[in-house]
C-alpha cells in the first residue's frame, strides 16, 4: 500500500515536471526551421510559473460556476490519466485502471473543457467547443482500435502489463507495430492539437480549435489549463515511447540506480519523439477543417489494417 502511494506520488511529480518539455522542444525546432533563434526549451516552464503566480483572475460576467471549476477538474482528470500511463517497469503503479479508463478519463476532462467554453457566451468558445468535440468523435475509433489491437496482441488491456510483455518479447520489426505506431502518431497529433489539425500558436478563428476554447481563461486558471494540455501531450508521447520502444529489458540493475537510469532513458525517448513531432509540425501545413475527416479515415484504416495483421494475417 505504501509503495503504491509513493510510486503514484513519484509518477505525478515526474509527469508534472516533464510536461512542458515537449512543447518547448517543438517550439525551438519550429524557430530554428524559420531561421530564428527561438526561446529556450524551458520557456514553457517560466510561462507556467508566471501564470500560476498571478493573484488575479478575470472571469466573464455571463459565466456560471462551471467556468471556475473547470481548470481544477481538467487538471485532476488529466493527472489521473497520467497516473495510469506506464512509466517504467521499475516504478509500476498498480492502479486498478486499464486503457479504456485512460481514454474515458481524458474524455471527462474534454467534456468539462468544451462545456466551459460555451459558458462564456462568446462565439469563439462555441466554435472551438463544437470543432473539438467533432474531431474527438471521428478520431476516437482509430485510438480504440489501435489500443484494443495492442491489448489482444499482448494479452491484457492493462497498460503496465502491455509494457512488461513488450519489454520481454524480442524486438521484431513487423507490420503490426509499424501500422499501429503510425495510427497512434496520427491520433497523438489530433488529440494534442498540433499542426496538420490545429495551429497552437495562432488566434485566428479560421485556424484555432483548442485555443478558441481557452480564450476566456486568465491568470492561474489559464496556467492550469495549459498544464493539463501539456500533460495530455506527454501522456500520448509516453504511451508511444514505452509500448513501441521499451527500454527496461536493457537495465539489469534494481533499486534506486535502476529507477534513475530507467527514468533518464525515458526522458531521452520523450525528447526524441518531441523532435520528431516538431519536424512533422514544421514540414506540414494545417488541413482545412473538413479535410480532417479524410485524415481520420486514414488513421482508422491504418489501425484497422494493424488489427487485421494480428488476426487475419
Amino acid at each position, binding site marked *: 500500500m505504501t509503495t503504491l502511494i509513493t510510486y503514484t506520488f513519484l509518477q505525478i511529480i515526474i509527469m508534472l515536471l516533464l510536461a512542458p518539455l515537449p512543447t518547448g522542444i517543438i517550439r525551438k525546432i519550429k524557430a530554428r526551421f524559420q531561421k530564428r533563434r527561438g526561446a529556450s526549451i524551458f520557456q514553457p516552464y517560466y510561462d507556467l510559473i508566471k501564470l500560476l503566480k498571478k493573484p488575479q483572475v478575470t472571469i466573464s460576467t455571463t459565466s456560471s460556476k462551471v467556468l471556475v471549476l473547470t481548470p481544477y477538474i481538467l487538471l485532476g482528470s488529466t493527472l489521473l490519466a497520467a497516473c495510469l500511463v506506464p512509466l517504467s517497469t521499475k516504478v509500476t503503479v498498480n492502479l486498478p485502471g486499464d486503457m479504456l479508463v485512460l481514454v474515458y478519463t481524458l474524455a471527462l476532462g474534454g467534456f468539462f473543457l468544451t462545456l466551459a467554453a460555451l459558458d462564456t457566451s462568446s462565439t469563439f468558445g462555441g466554435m472551438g467547443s463544437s470543432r473539438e468535440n467533432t474531431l474527438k468523435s471521428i478520431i476516437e475509433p482509430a485510438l480504440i482500435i489501435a489500443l484494443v489491437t495492442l491489448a489482444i496482441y499482448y494479452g491484457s488491456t492493462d497498460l503496465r502489463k502491455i509494457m512488461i510483455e513488450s519489454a520481454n518479447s524480442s524486438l521484431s*520489426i513487423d*507490420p503490426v507495430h509499424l501500422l499501429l505506431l503510425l495510427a497512434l502518431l496520427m491520433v497523438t497529433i489530433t488529440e494534442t492539437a498540433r499542426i496538420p489539425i490545429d495551429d497552437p500558436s495562432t488566434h485566428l478563428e479560421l485556424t484555432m480549435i483548442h485555443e478558441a476554447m481557452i480564450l476566456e481563461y486568465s491568470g492561474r486558471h489559464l496556467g492550469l489549463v495549459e498544464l493539463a494540455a501539456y500533460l495530455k501531450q506527454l501522456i500520448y508521447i509516453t504511451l508511444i515511447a514505452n509500448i513501441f520502444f521499451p527500454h527496461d529489458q536493457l537495465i539489469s540493475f534494481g533499486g534506486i540506480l535502476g529507477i534513475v537510469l530507467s527514468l533518464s532513458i525515458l526522458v531521452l525517448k520523450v525528447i526524441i519523439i518531441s523532435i520528431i513531432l516538431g519536424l512533422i509540425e514544421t514540414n506540414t501545413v494545417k488541413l482545412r477543417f473538413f479535410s480532417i475527416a479524410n485524415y481520420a479515415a486514414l488513421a482508422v484504416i491504418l489501425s484497422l*489494417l494493424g488489427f487485421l495483421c494480428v488476426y487475419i494475417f
Partner: protein
Amino acid sequence: MNSIYDMFSMIILLSGIVLIANKRSLSYIRTFQVQSLVITIGALIMAAETQHLELLIVGCLMLFLKVIYIPKYLRRTYNKVTHEIHKDFYLNIPILSFIACLLVVICYISIYQIPLISAKGVVTPLSCNLAIVLIGLLFMISRKDALGHIIGFLVIENGLFSTALFTTRGMPLIVDLGIFIDLLTAIIIMSMIIFQIDTKFQSTDTDKLHNLRG
C-alpha cells in the same frame, strides 16, 4: 529476412492507400515515385542477399525508369496542359479508403484458402501486393483526370512487379525487360494523347470525353 520483405510489402500497401487518399495530381506523381523507390530498395536488398545479377539489373532499370525518368516526364506533361481546380474523384475520400481496405481483406481471404500458398508462408507479400494491383485499378476507376488514369496503370504495373519480386524473387530477365519497354512506350503514347485531349477540350477531364458520343 522474410520479415523484412513482409515489412516492405506492408509499406508498399500503405503507399497504395495513401495514393487513394490523395487529392491533387502532383501528389499522385510523388506518391508513385515513393512507391517505386521502396520497391527498388527491396529489389536491391534482395539482389544483395541472393547474389543474382538479374535482380541488380532490374533494380537499377526500375530506379532510372520509374523513380527518375517517368515521374519527370509526367511532371513535364502536367505542366504543359491546362489544369483547373476541381474535385477530381467520384466518391469521397473516406469511402474510397474503406473500399481499398475491403479489397485488401478480400485478397487475403481468397489467398488464404489456397493450401499450397499458406504452406510456403508467402501469404502476406502475395496478398498485399495483389491488393496493390486492385488498388491501382480502383484508382483508375475513381479519378476523372487523365493523369490519374496513367498513374493507375503504372501502379498496376508496380503491383505486378512487386508480387513477382517478393513472392518468387523476380521474373526472368527477358520478361522484365519486355515489360519495361512496353511501359515506356505506353507512357509516351499516353502523354501524346493527353496533349491531344487538352488541345481539343482545353482540359484533361475525362468526363468531357463523354461529349464525343455520337
